[in-house]
């Protein structure tokens, strides 16, 4: 019996997809272990987001909504941290409202670990500059309540301490927030747009995951958002703009290589398809039987 001939085209058409998993893992991990330092370009979207936050003044009160669970935080982390660094540096007052129960340990991670030294540098203190309200926006109904009468809906912070006598005394309805900043994985809160932005005209910025980009652009184009930041790449661009390198910029080498690798595999797959699969089908269709 003769040996089967090796066919590159057949290999391109029929390779085991686990090779893709392995190659992707290596290619993504490699630049994170040994960064290459590829340049990045800042998009107009990120620049607009940066300018909107830079437009805030010290003492402005921002409703900071974290509608993300742990898994989504991994993608939003660069933009998340960069945005909060900007808020801290500008002296903006933050009221952190969670839209997902997994946000509670997230608060510890962000404020007790990631941003701790930054907050110390700018003397950013709890209750004076930021208050964690907790899981107060579990659904639209809660958002409506807080938008109409904030102090009736929210009286204490997440540890049960009264918020009376803090900067939140100046917030009564949705109109009193200088801005809303929403960090969401899409499971987020439609009540913010429907019942605060549309009702009171409060400006809103949003940091979304990559797959939410079309929806975010639609809201941006309609004027519902004043700025948007997309995914890890947007976060990396923001880190670059504020000159605070972080996890985003570290990931960009892997990001770039991963994207190029996908294009290469699409090309390989198409070569295999036209070179092998469709010819095999043609041969089978026209074979003498």
């Amino acid at each position: 019996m003769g040996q089967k001939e090796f066919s590159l085209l057949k290999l391109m058409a029929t390779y085991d997809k686990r090779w893709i998993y392995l190659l992707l893992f290596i290619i993504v991990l490699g630049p994170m272990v040994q960064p290459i330092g590829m340049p990045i370009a800042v998009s107009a979207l990120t620049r607009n987001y940066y300018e909107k936050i830079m437009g805030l003044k010290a003492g402005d009160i921002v409703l900071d909504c974290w509608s993300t669970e742990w898994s989504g935080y991994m993608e939003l982390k660069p933009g998340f941290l960069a945005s909060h660094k900007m808020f801290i540096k500008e002296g903006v007052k933050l009221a952190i409202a969670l839209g997902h129960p997994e946000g509670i340990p997230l608060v510890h991670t962000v404020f007790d670990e990631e941003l701790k030294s930054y907050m110390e540098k700018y003397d950013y203190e709890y209750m004076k500059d930021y208050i964690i309200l907790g899981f107060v926006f579990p659904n639209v109904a809660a958002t409506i309540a807080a938008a109409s009468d904030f102090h009736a809906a929210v009286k204490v912070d997440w540890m049960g301490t009264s918020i009376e006598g803090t900067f939140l005394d100046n917030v009564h309805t949705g109109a009193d927030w200088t801005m809303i900043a929403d960090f969401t994985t899409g499971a987020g809160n439609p009540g913010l747009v429907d019942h605060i932005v549309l009702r009171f005209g409060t400006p809103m910025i949003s940091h979304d995951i990559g797959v939410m980009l079309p929806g975010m652009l639609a809201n941006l184009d309609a004027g519902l958002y004043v700025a948007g930041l997309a995914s890890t790449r947007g976060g990396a661009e923001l880190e670059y703009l504020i000159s605070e390198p972080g996890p985003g910029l570290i990931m960009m080498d892997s990001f770039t290589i991963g994207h190029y690798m996908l294009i290469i595999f699409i090309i390989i797959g198409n070569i295999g398809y036209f070179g092998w699969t469709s010819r095999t089908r043609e041969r089978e269709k026209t074979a003498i039987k």
Partner: protein
Amino acid sequence: MSWLFKSKQVNLAVLVFFFLVGFVPYFFLMPQVDDAVNKLSLIAATTGQFTVAIAIYSQWRRSLRFIKEKRKGWAYHIYLLALMSGMTFIGFAWGKSHAAYIWLTSAIVTPLSSVAYGILAFYMFSALARAFRARSLKAAFLIVSGCIVLLYQAPLTGAYFPGIESYAVFLTDNFGMSLSRMFSIAIIIGGIILNIRMLTGRELAFLGFAREES
């Protein structure tokens, strides 16, 4: 008294009343009703969170059955129940800021949650590499557009070929965004009509009357 809760008409009347309480103040200025709306909204928000208790009960039932019958993977259910109970106990006993609770979250929940999400990248990658075939002209256009957007999304491309941004943004804005808007229209209209069906008594399943109907 149970007839009150079982009556279709009473349930519908309550539904219509609370719908009007929420709907009317949105379209008509009625500051007198705002306080009532706020309180109702809070009650709805609080009640909805009790599904967590149902999930815990349901999981215990299911896991105990798995363990009793020694079905495939039963050992993992012991681990699941131990972790679930431990975390619930620690959370209630010592609060969410206790080191043990934070450790459980950071060491177990966070990595698991991140992996479940991170795996998507591998799946999407292999699905796209497998499925993107230029079998027709339309498919070829799709692949070309996809590659343009992919190239733009890679930060390095924008640094050396800034002109690609206009093409990619054109594709995203004109196709992606318009698709998203079309979806929104369809979903919102469907949602409004479903509400009308509920209010007119034509969709009673959610009130628990489906059994009688079938």
